[in-house]
């Protein structure tokens, strides 16, 4: 009789800790979805800035490199395309991973869990295919991480294996998040240097306009046109200065959220972890703030 009670008690403990784990996985998934959509939103918004700053960096006066078309030099964007492809794949794979974890956490029948895992695995393999392995070694590394994640989750039939699967997934999730953060960081570095170069160019243009305004013997309407152009340069300079700050806030919040995301992913691998664990609470808070900082860009 005592033995039977012991077995029941152990079963209950195991079931309850399993439930606690699933709640924690669900909580992690919610925050990971926020991280993925905020990063996607931010990168896409900032692509417009990228184009604008690339346009401002055009310098027709600079001598072309021998044997190279000035147009090719000015309009080159190979790595920008590669970076955009990586970002799309990293953001989408993180989003789909979060979605699948959420479904595994809430589905209470094994068939639904199996279907969800298979769908996830298929989608990830398709995502890995959009990366061009011939062009860039960073794309190769990301494709490898996405494919590895896909194979970990393929063939799951019961949700009890979730702990084991999240453990195996850790290095690949790290690679995906590291790639996402590194590309956004580099994008922001490109903006910082380009903004400064644009500012230098505006100052040169402003001084040239001022010189002509005072010395070229212009009629009044020509002077007005010059003054309007100079005013536009000042307006653009201030707009650029103002645009820089929210992007910097987002980047710093993104770095923080990436760290707490990986810590939370590690935490959900612990048996019996609850949804109010400090790692999950920290990640949830960081992800909320990240979404709020991306809204300020619009």
């Amino acid at each position, binding site marked *: 009789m005592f033995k039977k009670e012991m077995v029941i008690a152990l079963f209950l403990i195991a079931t309850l800790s399993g439930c606690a784990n699933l709640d924690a996985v669900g909580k992690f998934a919610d925050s990971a979805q926020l991280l993925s959509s905020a990063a996607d939103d931010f990168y896409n918004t900032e692509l417009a800035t990228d184009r604008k700053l*690339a346009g401002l*960096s055009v*310098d027709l006066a*600079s001598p072309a490199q021998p044997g190279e078309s000035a147009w090719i*030099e000015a309009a*080159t*964007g*190979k*790595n*920008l395309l590669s970076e955009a492809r990586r970002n799309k794949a990293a953001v989408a794979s993180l989003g789909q991973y979060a979605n699948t974890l959420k479904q595994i956490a809430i589905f209470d029948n094994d068939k639904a869990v199996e279907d969800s895992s298979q769908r996830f695995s298929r989608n990830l393999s398709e995502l890995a295919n959009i990366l061009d392995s011939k062009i*860039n*070694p*960073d794309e190769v*590394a990301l494709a490898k991480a996405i494919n590895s994640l896909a194979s970990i989750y393929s063939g799951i039939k019961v949700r009890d294996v979730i702990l084991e699967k999240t453990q195996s997934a850790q290095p690949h999730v790290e690679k995906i998040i590291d790639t996402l953060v*590194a590309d956004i960081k*580099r994008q922001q*570095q*490109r903006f*910082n*240097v*380009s903004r*400064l*170069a644009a*500012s*230098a*160019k505006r*100052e*040169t243009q402003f*001084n040239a306009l001022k010189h002509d305004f005072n010395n070229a013997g212009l009629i009044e309407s020509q002077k007005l046109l010059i003054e309007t152009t100079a005013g536009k340069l000042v307006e653009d300079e201030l707009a650029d200065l103002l645009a820089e700050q929210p992007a910097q806030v987002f980047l710093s919040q993104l770095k923080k959220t990436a760290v707490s995301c990986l810590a939370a992913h590690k935490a959900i691998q612990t048996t019996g972890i609850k949804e109010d664990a400090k790692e999950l609470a920290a990640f949830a808070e960081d992800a909320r703030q990240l979404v709020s900082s991306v809204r300020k860009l619009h």
Partner: protein
Amino acid sequence: MSTTTEEILDQISTLILDLGSLREQVSDATDRAAINNQITALTKWWRKIDDLRASEPKPGLAEAKTALEGIVVDLKKEKKKLESVAKVIYRAAQAIAIAEKVAKLVV
């Protein structure tokens, strides 16, 4: 240890941003124009290298990285207390020459 274009990009962007801070300490139009020219030229090479960047190490970049690090240290000193705009322009010109070499090396 091998050096990557990513590390070179970090060094050059630090230099460009430091030149920006130094420019803010200068009000003379000629000096500002000279610093602006260096910022524009260095940014041009930064963008060129960015387009060819990869996180894989590339042979021949270690020397460029060391030289750039030296210039970064020098400009940081000037940033704290600007003594010579001519020195800033000269060090920036050296960085531009290094960046040009790197861009040609990684094509």
